[in-house]
């Protein structure tokens, strides 16, 4: 912390006082660090609408096979079977983690009056509003507004190409990191800016590259924790590896967020879905193993979700946009249960599953049980679930 403060006061005087530090930088410099090893939440958003029924599969239900003649997974291929449900064969490590008692499934998660637009449904999940209401800040952003005095640029870390609405609050309490590699070593920064034929643009890019707020903290955390060789070389694998390094390096962010694309499987679903879930499984397995051996799994709650599930009946080789789907909670001392009944394939709403558990109840649970925060403060009125942690 001393070095950081020193850095700030130095740049303050360097400009002769005529150029003023932005308020947030100043506030940051005078703030003491968060307590070591606080609990944190890690989100993986599966973009495109993940097919819940082929992820956590009701393999015992005759209607599952009747409605999905082309894409149903055979009972034999489903793994980790319990109580009529089992995992997609690509999720072998999910099954193992469940056996270890470190994975809970929350079934049939959704919200009333579901919207089948990716765009809008993601917005709903990110703002935690009713589907008839339009929020401009995210649920995690609002939570961080309450948690952070002034402004803490690394309270939330978003690994993505663009800012995430879920993390947007009144204050900029999160940063978006497009490319974790930019933090590797300072001296590489200059070189990693792609030069163009426009020197003015190159100049601005170099500045932009060097000033990501919170970069100092991230550097320090990365320096403390070594890279793990065990992560797959996929996008998600790299992002999770990087998140784990920051956690191990004591960055103490409260929220990490990343996403995986490709779940909009209108066509050729079996192949695409298998490929996506394999990437997900391998990345999560590495992350789980990494944190477990570091003794940090208790502090870290990984949440996997998607903006909606898919239509129960297939459309041939794929599925159209649907509604409710399962969420997966890994680590963080979860009790390893399956909450909620198995998907009701009989009583459908226009061919879609009816949700049983509101996603905001899951949010409220996470905030209450893991972060000690009452979700009512940010306008979530749903009661938290019992038995998840």
């Amino acid at each position: 912390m001393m070095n950081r403060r020193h850095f700030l006061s130095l740049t303050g005087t360097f400009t002769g006082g005529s150029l003023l530090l932005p308020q947030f930088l100043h506030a940051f410099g005078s703030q003491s660090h968060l307590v070591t090893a606080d609990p944190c939440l890690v989100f993986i958003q599966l973009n495109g609408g993940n097919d819940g029924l082929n992820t956590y599969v009701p393999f015992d239900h005759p209607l599952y096979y009747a409605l999905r003649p082309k894409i149903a997974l055979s009972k034999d291929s489903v793994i980790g079977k319990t109580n009529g449900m089992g995992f997609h064969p690509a999720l072998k490590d999910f099954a193992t983690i469940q056996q270890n008692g470190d994975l809970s499934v929350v079934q049939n998660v959704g919200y009333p009056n579901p919207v089948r637009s990716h765009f809008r449904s993601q917005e709903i999940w990110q703002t935690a509003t009713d589907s008839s209401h339009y929020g401009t800040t995210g649920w995690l952003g609002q939570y961080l507004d309450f948690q952070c005095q002034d402004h803490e640029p690394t309270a939330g870390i978003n690994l993505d190409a663009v800012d995430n609405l879920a993390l947007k609050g009144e204050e900029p309490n999160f940063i978006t990191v497009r490319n974790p590699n930019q933090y590797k070593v300072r001296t590489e920064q200059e070189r990693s800016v792609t030069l163009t034929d426009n020197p003015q643009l190159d100049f601005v890019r170099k500045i932009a590259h060097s000033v990501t707020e919170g970069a100092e903290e991230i550097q320090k955390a990365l320096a403390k924790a070594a890279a793990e060789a065990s992560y797959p070389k996929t996008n998600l694998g790299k992002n999770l590896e990087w998140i784990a390094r920051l956690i191990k390096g004591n960055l103490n962010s409260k929220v990490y967020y990343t996403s995986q694309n490709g779940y909009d499987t209108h066509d050729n679903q079996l192949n695409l879905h298998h490929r996506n879930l394999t990437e997900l499984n391998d990345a999560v397995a590495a992350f789980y193993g990494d944190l477990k051996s570091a003794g940090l799994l208790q502090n870290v709650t990984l949440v996997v979700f998607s903006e909606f599930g898919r239509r129960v009946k297939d459309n041939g080789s794929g599925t159209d946009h649907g509604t409710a789907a399962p969420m997966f909670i890994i680590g963080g001392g979860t009790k390893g249960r399956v909450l909620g009944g198995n998907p009701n394939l009989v009583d459908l709403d226009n061919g879609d599953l009816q949700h049983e558990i509101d996603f905001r109840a899951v949010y409220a649970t996470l905030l209450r049980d893991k972060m000690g925060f009452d979700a009512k403060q940010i306008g979530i009125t749903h009661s938290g679930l019992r038995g998840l942690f």
Partner: protein
Amino acid sequence: MDRATLWSLRLGFSSKEAQKIQSMGIESFLDASFTSKVRLDVPNFLRESPKSLGEVRELRQRLKAKNPDSVRELVRKEVQVSQQMKDWWLEQMMAAAFPLREKMTCFWHNHFVATYQKVKMNHWILDHNQLLREGAFGNFKTLTKQVVQSNAMVRYLDNVDNKKGKINENLSRELLELFTLGIGNYSEDDIKNGAKGLAGLGLGQDGAQYRKIFEDNDFITYFGKTGRFKAADLVDIIFEQKAAPYLITRKILKWFIYDVPPEDLVRYYGDYFREVDFEIQPLLRKMVTEEFAKNTAGSKIKDPLLYILQLKNELHITTLSPRLITIFLRQQGMDLFGQPNVKGWNGGTEWLSSQIYLQRHNAADLLCNRRALPGNNPLNGEVMAVKNPPRRLEIALDFDATGNHKTIIAALQNRLLYDTTPEMQAEFESILKYDFDPKSEGAEHAVLRLFNAMVKRPEFQLL
């Protein structure tokens, strides 16, 4: 970027004039700009400020008689008036139907620098500013003569201390080095002798005046000519020099178009400037119409003024106090009436440092969040009240709701970014996805997020 928008930004302070440029054509737009009305009335806030040295003396004595402390009060009040003058000018810039005159006034303001901090008379600062406004499209030689013989300039560059037998070279030097010819085009003797010619030119009632007792009436040699030269003669001789048109032409190219103007263009337009006897209007006409036809977008880093007014205009913000903007400008290193030194703002890459860049992003985020810019000094250690609900700005963003995500992205890009790459396109399409419905309720929030992302691209810093 759409060409009309690019030139609206270049010839003004926002994309406000893009429509006019589009419909009138660039030449008629220039004509209308050149003939735009000049308002030279004295603004109300200056009513009580002293107009001359005599009035200052009188006021001081009157106040002193009443209460010695009230003299300090007078100084404090004039500092406030000077702050009001910044707000006033900013309002002129924002309100102008054809802002090119204000843009050009600001150019001259940064060429013939004379700051309040040194001049300390608000009326003289206003006179100076009005002189530049009135002569914005006039004759460079005439303007130089007028500026050299203004109260603001003779005080700013210490010519009030330049007296026979006690020569002060400051004004003489800057007249050659910064105002006209530039380093390498004059000798130290020219400076010494020029200073003699300027000796005795001090403060006066309506502009600077020679005072007989301080004049130096020796014969001097100035650029090879010998005579008893005074201010106007010196300027005439300077403008006979071969180098006369280039420094200013380079600066004008820098102000409007290129951070690093190609030297052949400087020669080309400079030669023309001499041909038209240093008339600014034909120079601007030629330069703008010829450069308009070229693809020159992205050759300049935005100054803070353009940066913030473009954002304000795009978001249709009308309730943001001008004071918050002038404070922002000062924090960004572009204090109106307050350049750090006689060289003025250097511009180009000097506009940006990492702090300035972060501060720009912070401002963009605040405005997109419907929040005002931060007020005063963030270094004073005050911690803002954390949970105070901030006062909201009214904001609105133009987009065509009959289009789709791609047309909306393209339209915004055309207004905001001089260039785009496939990587940027992918980024924007991950904010406005293919199933985004612009007609749906709340759609404007999503377009605003797209806008916010675009203005935080490095490319937005350029024009």
